[in-house]
């Protein structure tokens, strides 16, 4: 068996490929062959190392030497020095910016691993349909420990001390919520897991339930013990069939092992979980609407107070937490509140899972300590912008959030910082936009969603958002006027201040944040009738360059509305009043004479 002694791993992530990593790999291969090492050394192209800022990256295995910012010209030296003579090439080692010393191997390079998986600790690791794999990874130990060794009050203290805050968007301190629900006196209480996950683009809750359903069940049981509830309900949208299937299997298995049911761990504590299906309405993720939906009523929110902690499901005290919030709980008991609170920032401890999407290279599900910057997420973990385009904005918080820009890239991600800058954490959708995205259209896209999802109960949300949408529509159609910009802002502010629930109170955020961060783009639409990103069709103009046009007549023949005139062998002309901007002419033109302005 030809086993190689050495492997040279060359990063083939999109970012590194853009800086010639393929040539580097080819050059190393050639140098390896020239030095007669082809039988001992294998050169491999890998996926992204997540350290794109210092790319291209080359790693030597088995000694794990980590070379950064390698160029094709370095290949010979790397092979000759490292592989032939066994000496490290010092100038290509990573230099720690704080200590100014070179870091020679990836064992000491863990800092470049920007991700830390707490909520996702078992996702992609265990078989979610086999409880034994969860148990082997300390599953249900936290529940056992809490039931045998903690009073409910003491367990709540642990959650409080960890500093964990709700991952469903609001960031309310979880321990405090549990304490409030415990203090509400009632014969029956409920634990509810919010798995509605309505933000477009967010799929972290689904992934947790599909990859590690037991962690949520275990946490719900712990919560039940703490607040004094023996019933748990999981509200999940019916369009998550795989998550539902795995949850059902997990519940069955947990009952079989006695982690759900009566007298759990011989402690006398009873707890069981049932699943409730939602029809996938965004507003049903809001906790009061969610509770009404579970009661079989219309999924409409009600004014708080009373909070669910006082009067929730069936009028009984109810503790509602998000899936990801729950997934953190067992780890807090296994590793300790101190361990947890030391991760992240003092006010936002722990990690957050984000669904990274849009125009970034490494679309995926990531989990980073709070306080990580947007730049690290987008450019290191995300591998930068697709096709080498320019970063324009990142949208966080879904329809309730806002767009952050270049100047926000170095801000630490935590609840307060995002809100202070006009966006919010939300459930963790993160959509990256590049120079081709029109910010007015982006705001309109989110308003499309809110108008569709508004339950209609309160007029600011029902009518106000509709009006906002009409204004945006008008602007993208090139019919906007300057006064519309102040109308937008006034209306948005009124809706924010007067809407009944979180949906309406936050729905103008995408409008306000784009108005604040991209005023020039709105102005270009209303003053100059131009869409700088070239996305608003109504504002586009197809023109023929008379110097390039040879008069072949091809364009006028493909035009479906006869907007192009001109005789043979003379430059043609597009009548923009007739043109429907279908682009057929531009596609057909063999001389590159047609462009969009």
């Amino acid at each position: 068996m030809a086993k190689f002694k050495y492997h040279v791993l060359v990063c083939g992530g999109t970012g590194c490929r853009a800086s010639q990593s393929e040539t580097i790999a080819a050059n190393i291969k050639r140098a390896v062959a020239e030095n007669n090492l082809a039988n001992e050394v294998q050169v491999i192209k890998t996926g992204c190392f997540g350290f794109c800022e210092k790319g291209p990256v080359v790693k030597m295995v088995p000694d794990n030497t980590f070379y950064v910012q390698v160029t094709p010209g370095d290949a010979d030296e790397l092979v000759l020095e490292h592989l032939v003579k066994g000496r490290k090439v010092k100038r290509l080692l990573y230099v720690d910016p704080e200590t100014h010393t070179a870091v020679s191997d990836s064992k000491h390079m863990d800092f470049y691993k920007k991700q830390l998986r707490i909520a996702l600790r078992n996702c992609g690791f265990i078989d979610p349909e086999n409880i034994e794999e969860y148990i082997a990874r300390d599953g249900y130990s936290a529940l056992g420990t809490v039931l045998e060794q903690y009073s409910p009050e003491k367990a709540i203290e642990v959650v409080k001390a960890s500093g964990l805050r709700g991952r469903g968007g609001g960031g309310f301190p979880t321990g405090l919520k549990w304490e409030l629900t415990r203090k509400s006196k009632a014969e029956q209480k409920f634990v509810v897991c919010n798995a509605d996950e309505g933000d477009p683009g967010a799929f972290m809750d689904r992934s947790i339930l599909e990859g590690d359903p037991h962690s949520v069940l275990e946490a719900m049981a712990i919560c039940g013990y703490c607040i004094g509830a023996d019933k748990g309900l999981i509200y999940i949208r019916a369009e998550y069939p795989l998550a539902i299937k795995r949850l059902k299997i997990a519940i069955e298995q947990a009952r079989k092992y006695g982690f759900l049911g009566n007298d759990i761990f011989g402690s006398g504590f009873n707890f069981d979980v049932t699943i409730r299906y939602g029809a996938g309405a965004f507003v049903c993720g809001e906790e009061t609407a969610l509770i009404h939906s579970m009661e079989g009523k219309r999924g409409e929110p009600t004014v708080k107070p009373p909070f669910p902690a006082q009067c929730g499901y069936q009028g009984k005290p109810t503790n509602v937490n998000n899936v990801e919030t729950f997934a953190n709980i067992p780890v807090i008991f296994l590793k300790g509140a101190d361990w947890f609170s030391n991760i992240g920032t003092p006010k936002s401890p722990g990690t957050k899972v984000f669904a990274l999407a849009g125009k970034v290279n490494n679309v995926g599900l990531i989990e980073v300590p709070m306080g990580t910057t947007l730049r690290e997420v987008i450019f290191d973990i995300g591998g930068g912008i697709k096709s080498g385009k320019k970063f324009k904005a990142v949208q966080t918080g879904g329809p309730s959030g806002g767009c952050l820009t270049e100047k926000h890239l170095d801000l630490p991600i935590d609840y307060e910082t995002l809100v202070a800058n006009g966006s919010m954490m939300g459930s963790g959708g993160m959509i990256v936009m590049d120079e081709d995205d029109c910010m007015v259209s982006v705001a309109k896209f989110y308003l499309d969603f809110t108008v569709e999802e508004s339950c209609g109960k309160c007029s600011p949300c029902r009518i106000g958002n509709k009006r906002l949408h009409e204004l945006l529509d008008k602007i993208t159609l090139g019919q906007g006027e300057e006064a519309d910009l102040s109308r937008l802002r006034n209306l948005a502010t009124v809706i924010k201040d007067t809407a009944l629930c979180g949906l309406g109170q936050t729905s103008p955020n995408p409008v306000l944040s784009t108005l604040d961060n991209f005023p020039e783009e709105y102005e270009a639409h209303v003053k100059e009738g131009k869409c700088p990103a070239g996305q608003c069709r109504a504002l586009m103009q197809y023109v023929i360059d008379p110097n390039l046009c040879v008069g072949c007549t091809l364009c006028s023949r493909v035009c479906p509305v006869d907007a192009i005139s001109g005789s043979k062998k003379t430059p043609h002309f597009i009548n923009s009043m007739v043109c429907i901007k279908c682009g057929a002419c531009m596609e057909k033109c063999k001389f590159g004479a047609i462009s969009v302005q």
Partner: protein
Amino acid sequence: MSDKVRNLQELRNLRDELKGRLLLREKSKAPEKLVQIKVSMATCGIASGARETMSYLIEELDQQGVDAIVTQTGCMGYCYAEPTIEVTLPGEKPVVFGHVDTVKAAEIIEKYIKKGELVDGIIPDTYNTIDNK
């Protein structure tokens, strides 16, 4: 019912027993030769063809007489490289491969599993776990 875990000590014993059993999958006659493969089978993976990859791996390894156990797991987070699989050769660290369609799977069996040669498309582990933090 005898399956029930009655106290924390019993859970700990069970955990230790399972840990050992899962490390050396009991199914194998010769665990020191056993290849372990996990296929990322969340909605995203399945949508990109993880199911076909998984069936292919199971059938192909069986036909070629490779002592292997193929299991499903949740989302590894590398949506841009689905389907993803993790292969652990006996005595080696786990290696994750991305974009594993049946063609790639065949290459992985031929080169990595049978000969121990790495192939292009490895995804380096880019995150810390709660065990090393």
